[in-house]
């Protein structure tokens, strides 16, 4: 049985807009429009989509603070909205832009409180806290009031707070937002460890695709409340019509050259950039160029996942 199961889950909101002095128009907005997916225990899944795509609405329904308008939704075998409090003991939630820590008090106080809230047995609490402190390098910070922590430190503090009670599922909403490169690396390394070694199921929303590349073996892309992709990163390239780039240095500057199966996207002096589908081999394109033009040097660039996603969003918006 999958840990998280959604079947044709929909959620719509009624939005009232003023149309006249007194008149108001009611409009239905479908934030989530027929989502179906399963997540197995122990998976690490990236959940991405443009702003307003329905990511947060999904997370709210998964944690039980929002009821779906229709459809079936189960997390760890229970209906989240109906058993929110019971479920809350078994999940961890971290928001990059919010904190659950006690602002004016030392970090340690928030952990002590979590221990009481989740009724964590002493031995387990100590073991978990020690592990988090070590992996997240919180040792010197435990007695610092949270308001004095840097964003990166606070984020690490929040991660520890969400994991002290050994949750089965960890929901992360943009956990690396606003962090510098070093802090991002540290957070990712920690998440990888939690997922691989503790077996905690992780569902991660982010706009930073490096998070996805480094952590997730599966990506779900949502737009306008629907899944537009569900699979691995390689599959995303196929679906996203991603292109590789062949950069050629010709003997002299020329107008854009003509090559079958590729098109010139940029020209800079003798250097030209040719795009061709990512699934295709570069060999025929190289051969075609070499056959007709004097070639000095060449290189092939792999598609950036950002571009793939950007293209995907744009396509969905047009379609």
């Amino acid at each position: 049985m999958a840990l998280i199961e959604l079947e044709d889950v929909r959620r719509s909101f009624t939005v009232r807009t003023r149309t006249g002095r007194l008149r108001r128009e009611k409009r239905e907005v479908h934030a989530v429009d027929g989502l179906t997916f399963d997540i197995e225990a122990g998976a690490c899944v990236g959940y991405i989509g443009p702003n307003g795509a329905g990511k947060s609405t999904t997370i709210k329904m998964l944690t039980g603070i929002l009821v779906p308008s229709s459809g079936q939704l189960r997390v760890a075998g229970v209906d989240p909205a109906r058993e929110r409090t019971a479920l809350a003991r078994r999940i961890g939630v971290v928001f990059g832009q919010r904190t659950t820590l006690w602002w004016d008090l030392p970090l340690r106080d928030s952990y002590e409180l979590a221990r009481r809230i989740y009724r964590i047995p002493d031995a387990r609490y100590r073991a978990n806290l020690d592990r988090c402190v070590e992996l997240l390098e919180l040792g010197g910070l435990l007695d610092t009031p949270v308001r004095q922590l840097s964003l990166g430190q606070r984020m690490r503090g929040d991660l520890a707070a969400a994991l002290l009670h050994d949750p089965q599922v960890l929901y992360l909403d943009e956990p690396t937002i606003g962090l510098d490169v070093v802090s991002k690396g540290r957070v990712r390394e920690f998440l990888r460890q939690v997922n691989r070694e503790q077996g905690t199921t992780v569902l991660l929303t982010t706009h930073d695709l490096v998070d996805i590349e480094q952590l997730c073996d599966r990506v779900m892309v949502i737009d306008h409340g629907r899944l537009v992709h569900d699979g691995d990163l390689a599959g995303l390239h196929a679906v996203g019509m991603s292109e590789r780039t062949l950069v050629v240095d010709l003997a002299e500057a020329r107008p854009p050259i003509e090559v079958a199966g590729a098109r010139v996207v940029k020209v800079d002096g003798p250097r030209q950039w040719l795009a061709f589908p990512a699934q295709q081999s570069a060999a025929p394109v190289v051969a075609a160029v070499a056959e007709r033009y004097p070639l000095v040097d060449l290189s092939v660039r792999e598609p950036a996942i950002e571009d793939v996603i950007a293209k995907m969003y744009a396509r969905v918006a047009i379609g």
Partner: protein
Amino acid sequence: MPVSAKPGGPPRGRPPRTATAGAARVYLAVAAGSFRRYSTYRAATLAGAFTNTVFGFILAYSFLALWQARPGLGGYDTAQAVTYIWVSQALLVTVAVWGGGFQDDVQERFRTGDIAVDLYRPVDFQGWWLAGDLGRAGFHLVARGAAPMIAGALVFDLRVPHDPLVWAGFLLSVLLAVLVSFGLRYLVVLTGFWLHDSDGVRSVMLVVSMFFSGMLLPIGLFPGLLGEIAPLLPWASLVQVPTDVFLERSTGAGLLGALGFQAAWAVVLLALGRIVQLLATRRVVVQGG
């Protein structure tokens, strides 16, 4: 789908027998944390206590002048009238007559959206904030209550009770006052679920509270019908009732009646808060935030 086969996770349904003790420890931890939290801001506390003291002096001299012109006004002798000022100053922040305390926190959480995080926690919303507010009140009773009171006692001839039983009754009355005050503020803050910002309601409540709590003037001095209604309203529990207990105007059966009056309002308001909370969370869960 087989729900029963669920290895790993803790058992579903009722938590173990120690649930009540466990919950009590959560709230104790919250109250203690809140007490410590307020105690971290020493400069603010000092400034606040100083302001209380200055206002105490101004009002005490005004009352002295008033009672010299009209001795025995409202059944208070001059020493009682001056003591009334200092006790009410001690209660002003402790009981949060002007609003505030947890109210500021919750309003801020509405504004930032952090309120959603609170719903992820397996803790009762009302219990959480009540525990925090009691911790705060405990700190303010010492820092913003006792300190100005001592300053007043050094200059004025105050009517301080000698009977430890009166002191016990007074402290109990202050506790009930905080509960009533919490009940009122909680209702105000919950309007945020519908209005997004409860600031407007709060300003109205501030005026009502100042007037009907006895903070400006003992409500026994109000004329006519107003004087008859005011003592029955919940706000009388905030300042008027505990101060009268302190001044030994409510003794014996009168004391029990006074405490009973406060307790009744506390129960009514807290129960009302629970109902509104239920409606509010249902609204959020069903209609979205």
